[in-house]
């Protein structure tokens, strides 16, 4: 084997061609850290999804942050009552961009079985929701399906277009 051929072979083993978006998004989707908060019975399923049997640390999201300032994803797990709504909004506002919201269960999606004075009819009234997971409460499998849908969404984003990566946005 000539020297030239040897160099070519070595280069083929060590150089990978890809796009910035693909690597960047792959890194982001592989470490989505959720905020640690739950509102109702859905939170129990979320805890179930976090613990050993279902174990969502497989997605790199085992670190549930107790501070919204270190989190990427807000899982709204449960009924949002009007008394709690300002606090949920405040948690969302404290999260740094990029941030995502997953509405877990029928209550967070549309008020669920509580069409009354006390319950907010869907958390999308106050925060933009990326993924809705139906169920009452959803099984951990369903929640993980929601995570994977969110991962698909993250992979589709491009830092050329997302609002949180633009210079104009930073000036604001």
């Amino acid at each position, binding site marked *: 084997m000539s020297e030239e051929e040897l160099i070519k072979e070595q280069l083929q083993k060590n150089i990978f061609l890809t796009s910035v978006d693909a690597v960047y998004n792959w890194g982001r989707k592989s470490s989505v850290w959720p905020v640690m908060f739950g509102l109702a019975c859905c939170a129990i399923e979320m805890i179930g999804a976090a613990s050993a049997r279902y174990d969502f640390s497989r997605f790199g999201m085992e670190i549930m942050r107790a501070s919204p300032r270190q989190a990427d994803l807000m899982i709204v797990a449960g009924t949002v009552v*009007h*008394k709690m*709504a*300002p*606090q949920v909004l405040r948690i969302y506002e404290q999260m740094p961009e990029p941030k995502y919201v997953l509405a877990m269960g029928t209550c967070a999606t549309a*008020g669920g079985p509580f*069409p*009354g*004075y*006390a*319950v*907010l*009819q869907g958390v999308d*009234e*106050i925060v933009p929701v990326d993924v809705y997971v139906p169920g009452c409460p959803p099984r951990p499998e369903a929640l993980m399906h929601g995570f994977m849908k969110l991962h698909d969404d993250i992979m589709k984003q491009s830092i050329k277009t997302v609002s949180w990566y633009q210079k104009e946005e930073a000036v604001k």
Partner: protein
Amino acid sequence: MTNAEILTKLKEKYPDAIVDVPELIDFTVVVKPKLLTSVAVFLRDECALDYMADVTAVDRPEYFEVVYHLYSVKNQTSEPFVLKVYLEDKETPAVASVTPLWKGADFQECEVYDLMGIHFEGHPNLRRILLWEGFPGYPLRKDFENRTFTFEELEPTRPKTPELM
């Protein structure tokens, strides 16, 4: 002392205070709202009903009914002695608070005030406990229209200081 004995004793001591003794419900006595405090003091001190388990209210067509469930820890009673008052004034219902007598009535009177709008005079800290100050109406009243609210709709009713949320 059993509940039946307490009822007999109360009838002897306060014949004027008793409005009604419903036969269908065991150990229930309806008293005049003005004499509630003296009857309550008598039941607590003379009849050893030392535990206030429930304070709740019912919205009747003609009046509000405030219900107190009393037990005796000292005598180990298993059935409640039920004390009731009827409040005829449906616009501004008010009754004397029993929180100075039984500390356990504190939050429960707050809850009745919150959801039924009954004012407890003499309560040390009467405020809405589940909803916030400024919520439109009293949800457990029959004339409250139970409908859904949007976030924007309720936003102006909320207190501006976070401590009062």
